[in-house]
Each structure stands twice: as C-alpha cells, then as structure tokens.
C-alpha cells in the first residue's frame, strides 16, 4: 500500500492503457493508502513517515533507481536482459565525476550518459552481434566496470584538488526549484500534525519544494519513454524484437539494429542514473551505486515492464531508502506499515485463489506486526537493510501476474524466421 501512497507523490504514470483500472480507482487507492499511512503515523508518532523532508529524500533516492529501471525497460523490451545495469551505472558515476567537477553538474550528467553508452555498446556487441548469453555478458560488465572506474579514478582524481584515489573532487549540485508561495503555506499545515490533512500537506510540500531539476528531467524521461515505446513506429518495432523477433524479421524489421538502439539507450539511461547519483551526492565515490542497478531491475519487474509501474516501484524503494536514512525510529514505524501492507496483499491474493501465497504473506505480515508491538526500536544494523528486505518481499509476493516480453533473454540469430 505504500506503493499507492507514493503514486500520489510521483504522478508520473504517462502511458497507462488502463483497461482494468480507471484513474479514479488509482486515486481512491492512493487516498486509501495515505489514510493508512496517516493512521500509522498517528499511532507510532513517527512524523517522518509523511514529512516533506522524507518525501524529498525519497524522490532524491528514487530518481537514480528510476533511471536504472528505465534502462532495464529499454533493453528488456527489445529482448535483451541487461543485468549489467549496475556496471553501467558505475561507469556513469565516474563519467559524472570526471566531467562534473571540471565543467559543472550538467556536463557531469552528459559525461555519465556517454560513459553509460560505452557500457551499453559493449553489452550490445556481446549479446546481439556475438550471441553471448545475456547474463554472462552483464556479469562481465558488472565485474569490469568498477575496476575500470577505480583505475580511472586513481589516474585522474588522485592529484586533483579535493579528490582522492577513490573519489572525485566536489561536483556542484544541480539547481533546485520551489513552487513559490505554495510551499510555506503547506508547511504550516504540515506542522499541525492533523490526521490525514497534515500528511497530505507533507507529501505535497515534499514534491513542490526544493525539487532538483534532475528529478524533473527524470519525470520527463519516464513520460517520453512511454510515448516513444508505445506510440511511435520506432517503439513498436523495438518492442516487437522482444516479443517475437522472428515475426519482426519476417516483416522486414532489422532486429539487430533495433536491439542495438535499445541496448545503447539502456546503457545511456543507466549512465544517467549513475550520473544523477553522483551529482546529487556531490561527488563520485568508489562503490557509490551500492546495488542500485539490481534494485532498478527489480523495480522494473515490479512495474510489469511499464514506465508507470517502474516509476511506482522506484518510488517505493526510494521511500524505504529515505526511511533508512531517517534512522531507526522511522524504520520501526515502517515495520507496522509493512505488516499492514502484507495483510492487504494476503487478502487480495486469497481472493484471487492464491492460497499458499496468501498464507505466506499473512504470516510474514503478522510477524512484522508482532515485531513492531513487541519492540521499541529496530537494531541499527538492520536499518540499512530495510530497502533490500522490502525489495525481496515485493518481488516474492507481488510479482505473480506479470507479462514480461515473450522473448526476453533468448539469443536471436538472424534468419531464424525461415
């Protein structure tokens, strides 16, 4: 349900061909989720659950994840599994560090994008031209990229002012914008701590105050991806390569070419994600990505290979990330929230006939509830693990009715159409 709660915050579901749920239903779900979150906030007295600060932090954390999952979307829609996202993100962080400290944050963004493209190109050559297993190529990139980034960082940053062997000099942050007037008024309401109203104000304030231009860029890119992939001939051809390359080829679509486009774009988006990470945290650091490429992939799967879905997924992970940053009290409240969410999942799964799954979800949900009520704090060691635990639970329990591209991960050789 936190998912729905954040859908309010993100408002970036561009290409919903809503057959089953109308926008009204989404709104009702979102409002319902916010009510639950407010209730938990009131009960646990953890104001961080819906404070504008949390929402801001969640957005900052979500943006690189969203870019990583967008990168995954591009590749997988064309039938190529890109588990090398993590490596391409690492390349992006270095590119951003190198260009960013010399010529400013936007140069850093472009630098990261170009470095990501190099990684994407490598993956495309291996998987498309040479038919290497996608996982093997991706793992190779994941092993190669951090080494390369560290080597380059020693070469270029050791002697730079403020740099070191494992980090770049400082990069200026990108500009931030605030919706004028609105923000302070919402802040007043937020501080009243009224049930629901203050929570809504907190969320709205979070998404209108001090928003980085990078976040806005991410929103635009998600929407643009949806339009390009689903509403243009280019996108249709690209997706057909992931659904049925034989059919595409029999209709004169150059499957290799579109796979190249897709994987290179994928590398570019991953690099962009790395760059945003580096720019928003002020510098390149070794090991900065911390598995975000993989979580991005998870967010994409959670989002059912759709831009709106992956944005929601990235928002969810960003939110838990923000909670982990807020410390143990917030994570403690998160336990209760997670417990409630799992019970809801259990009810939904039960109604759709998934008895076993429902039982597992209910059991874990009860466990979380019990944990919440029988303790006052979550051990500090576990706080950092919260985003990963949520990833695991979400993937295990929610990803049951997905529709991945039919031919994703399968090597395709030209001439199979015959």
């Amino acid at each position, binding site marked *: 349900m936190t998912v729905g709660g954040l859908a309010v915050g993100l408002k970036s579901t561009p290409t919903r061909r809503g057959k089953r749920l109308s926008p009204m239903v989404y709104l009702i779900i979102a409002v319902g989720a916010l009510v639950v979150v407010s209730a938990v906030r009131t009960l646990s007295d953890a104001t961080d659950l819906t404070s504008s600060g949390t929402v801001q932090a969640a957005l900052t954390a979500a943006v690189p994840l969203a870019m990583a999952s967008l990168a995954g979307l591009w590749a997988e829609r064309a039938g190529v599994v890109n588990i090398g996202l993590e490596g391409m993100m690492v390349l992006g962080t270095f590119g951003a560090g190198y260009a960013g400290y010399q010529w400013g944050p936007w140069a850093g963004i472009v630098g990261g994008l170009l470095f990501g493209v190099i990684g994407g190109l490598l993956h495309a050559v291996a998987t498309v031209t040479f038919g290497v297993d996608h996982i093997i190529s991706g793992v190779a990139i994941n092993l190669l990229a951090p080494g390369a980034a560290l080597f380059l960082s020693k070469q270029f940053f050791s002697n730079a002012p403020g740099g070191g062997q494992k980090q770049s000099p400082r990069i200026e942050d990108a500009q931030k914008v605030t919706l004028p007037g609105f923000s302070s008024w919402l802040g007043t309401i937020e501080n009243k701590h009224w049930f629901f109203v203050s929570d809504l104000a907190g969320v709205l304030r979070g998404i209108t105050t001090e928003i980085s231009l990078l976040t806005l860029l991410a929103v635009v890119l998600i929407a643009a991806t949806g*339009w390009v992939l689903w*509403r*243009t*001939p*280019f*996108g*249709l*051809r690209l*997706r*057909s390569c992931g*659904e*049925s390359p*034989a*059919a*595409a080829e*029999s*209709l*004169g*679509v150059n499957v290799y070419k579109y796979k190249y486009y897709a994987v290179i774009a994928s590398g570019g988006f991953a690099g962009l994600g790395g760059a945003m990470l580096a720019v928003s945290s002020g510098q390149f650091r070794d090991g900065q990505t911390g598995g975000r490429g993989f979580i991005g992939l998870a967010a994409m799967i959670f989002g059912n290979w759709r831009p709106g879905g992956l944005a929601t997924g990235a928002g969810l992970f960003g939110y838990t990330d923000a909670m982990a940053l807020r410390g143990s009290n917030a994570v403690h409240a998160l336990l209760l929230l997670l417990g409630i969410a799992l019970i809801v999942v259990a009810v939904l799964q039960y109604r759709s006939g998934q008895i076993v799954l429902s039982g597992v979800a209910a059991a874990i949900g009860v466990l979380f509830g019990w944990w919440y009520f029988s303790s006052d704090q979550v051990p500090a060691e576990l706080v950092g693990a919260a985003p990963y635990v949520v990833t695991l639970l979400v993937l295990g329990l929610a990803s049951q009715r997905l*529709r991945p*591209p*039919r031919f994703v991960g399968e090597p395709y050789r030209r001439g199979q*159409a*015959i």
Partner: protein
Amino acid sequence: MSTEPPAGAAPAVHLTAITKRFPGVVANSDVNISVRAGTVHALVGENGAGKSTLMKILYGMQQPDEGTIAVNGKPVSFGSPADAIRAGIGMVHQHFMLADNLTVLENVVLGSEPRKGVGLDFAAAHARIKEISDSYGLGVDPDRLVDDLGVGERQRVEILKVLYRGARTLILDEPTAVLVPQEVDELFGNLRDLKAEGLTILFISHKLDEVLSVADDITVMRRGTTVASVSPEDVTARKLAELMVGSALPVPELRESTVTDEAVLSVEGLTLVGADGRTVLNDISFTIHAGEVLGIAGVEGNGQAELVETLMGIRSPTSGTITLSGKDITNESTRHRREAGVGYIPEDRHRQGVLLEATLWENRILGHQTRKPNVRGPLLDRRGAKADTERIVVEYDVRTPGIDVNAAALSGGNQQKLIVGREMSGAPILLIASHPTRGVDVGAQAAIWEHIRRARADHLAVLLISADLDELIGMSDTLSVILRGRLVADHDPATVTPEQLGSAMTGAGRED
C-alpha cells in the same frame, strides 16, 4: 504448361524451370507452375517433395539456382521477402509469425506503420484494418491482444497482415494443419471471398480431400519436381495420392493370422483416478497374445493417452494389475518395463519421442541407455550406438545425410521411422504404438505398417492406438473401443466398417 496465356490474362505467377540445389541434395529441379489470376491453386506433394523450398523461393527467402519467376507476365527476381511483398506476393506461414503480447493492430502494422509526425497514426491504422477485415469478411478486431485469440483467428490476422501490405497473391503454407474441421470450413469460406475479390491464392497441402474441395487447379510435386497439373474435376483423392507417391497406394492390411495363445500383456481391472478426482480409466481389462495386434479406437481424450502412460509406468494406476509375460509389472518403473521388452512409439514425437537438438545416434540411445549396444559397463558405448544407428537408418530407410545430424534436420516421417527402428531394437516382446503414422507421408506410412506386420509375424504383441480408422481396421487382429475411460465394445476387424466404429466411439451405438 508452357502454353501462351490468352492476352490480357497473364498468369499471376509463372515459374519456369526452377532448380535449387543445397549441399548434397537437389531440393527443386525443373519446376514449372503457372497460377491463373483469381484462382485458388493447390500445390500438393509428400513431405520432402520440395514444396516448402519452392515457396521460399517464390517469397524471396531463398534464391533459385536456375529458372525464372514471372509475376503478372513480368519477369522478377526476389532478393528478400521485402521484394516479394513489393511485387504483391504475401506469405502466411504454417507456424504463425505473431507477437502474442502485442495487439492485432500492432502485429498487422509492424514494419509498415502509418505515421503522423514521428508518432504512429493509430486512428488511420485502425480504420484501414477494419476496412480490410470487413471487405473480406475476416471479422478481426484490431484492439484485441493476440494472446487472447484462438488458432483460427490468429490465422485470419496473418492473412490480414498480408493483405494490409497490398498482396494480390497469397501463399498459404499448410494452412489447415493447425485447424479443427470447423475452422477449416471458415478458412475455406474466407478463401472463396478472397478469390471473389480477384485475389490469387497458392495453397500448399497434403490433405487431399481439402485440396479437392477448395482448389481450381492442382499441381503435384514429387521428389523435387512437378509431375502433373490436374483439375479437381478430373481426379479423385486416391488418384491424386498415387500421383504424389508415384505408385499404387499402400493399404493397411494384415496377411494371415499369426495370433498365438501365449499371453504377453494382461491387464486386469485397471483403474486410474486423475489428480482432479475424475476417473480417467475405469476397470479396463484385456489381453494381448504374442503375434496379435490389439487396436483401440476412440475419440481423442477418452483415456487413450492415460492408458498408454499407465502401461508404460509413467502414471501409477489407482487399482488393477498389469502382467507382462506372466510377471506382475504393476509397480515396476518405466525403465524396468522397457528393459523387460516393452517398446513405445509415443503419440507426440517432439514431446516424447526424440530430442530435436540431439544427433540421431544420441536419440538412438534414449530409452535404451542401460542396454547393449549403447553401453559398456557404466559408460556409454558411442561406437556401438553409432553402428546400431547406421543399421536402423539402413533397415528403416531413414532418409538423412548422416547419423551425426540433429533430429530436427529430418522430416517428420523420417523422425518417426527412426523412432520405430529404435523401439523395435533390442527384441521387444510388446510394442505400444500410439498414432504411429500420424503426420507422416504416404511412403513412410507404408514402411511403418510393413515393419509392424513383420514384427507381428515374429511374435511381437502390439497395442495399436490410432485416430485413423482405416489403419485400425486394417492393422488389428482384435479391436476395442474406448469411451470415457472404459472399453465399451469389441469388434471384429474383418467385418466392422468405419461408420460402425465411429458410432461406437461416440457412444451412439452402444450395445452392452
């Protein structure tokens, strides 16, 4: 065939002296076909007669070594399917080329999308598809997901795809292979509509009844060349089949009785309750003697598959006993049953019979992986297996370039002959044959029948399950009918007619 067509009515497609060689084989030699515009022209021939190669040449997927192609009187040369499409030729593949997760509209317009700016013009595409669908009576809804469509609808989407690209000549490669009879009728209705609109259809098939009912002209291919052009009024299905095979048709029949009184397989009260609690097999009892063929007739899905799987030890019966040569094998594993002398020709050769991506000699080992000549001690005996595969290839006339090719390289009939040869190896005492000649051509069919006859004379007991009633009646010493998991009637194959058998199979003529 090379007569000058009347002025103003050049043949839609005219192939002259087409020859195509592949390393080691001549797929087409001196092929001549003339397809009149606005007709349905059928191309018939056995599997491996070169029909598919010819169509690939016509569709630009392969280039001929010799010969010329003329479309509407103009000579053309196709380097790729795109060239053929431009010349107005479209192909409906036997295996559909559709992306399941895309909508009908997306599948149809893919590769030649109407544009509005950089975007796809969905409205125009929608209107165009609707218009084509309506004018040819295809009844296709552009907005549905292909995944939700049935086989017949998918085929109409394929046809629509071709029409959308402006094709005036449609090649349909074995279009009825995947359809149920009612869908076949619908397809033929569509084809007549298309013909009425002036389109030309080239129809590849080896189902002769269908060809006779829909075609205006028929060209017969045999061994890579065209051997006859006939009109459907002048031939019968039997005559056409003889043209295809090049000799008189084989007839399924047994010679003198070889039945002995030595019981090989005795089944007593066999009952199987499925996972859903339904009784799939109900109190089945029968005995097969050495030298006897027991045929089981039945509409598919009445327990035949389950009976075979229970006999093979793939499923465990709920109750009842199975005795092989006096030994109770009810609780034996499949491997032990096979080692005790049970051969098994499965109904679906691709799912159970062969590994398509393994070589012939590796396929020879399957099911005999514990026995000579395939093993020596704990290790596989490659040399022995290969030598024995060579034997099967010769004795069973498996047409293959060698035993090191993958099974996928063989035609269905030759794969089936390999399976029969393998299952007859190691001197079995019982052969369970499920649809042994399904989907094989006439020549292979005759060969398989002959092998079963010979093995029967050598005291093999055979359980024969088939949907081909002529085969059942001709090849069985005893006939039983299975209906809803029960053996409901016995017939004497010497006197029963296919009609009687048919009504017993549906339960209409129950006589117990």
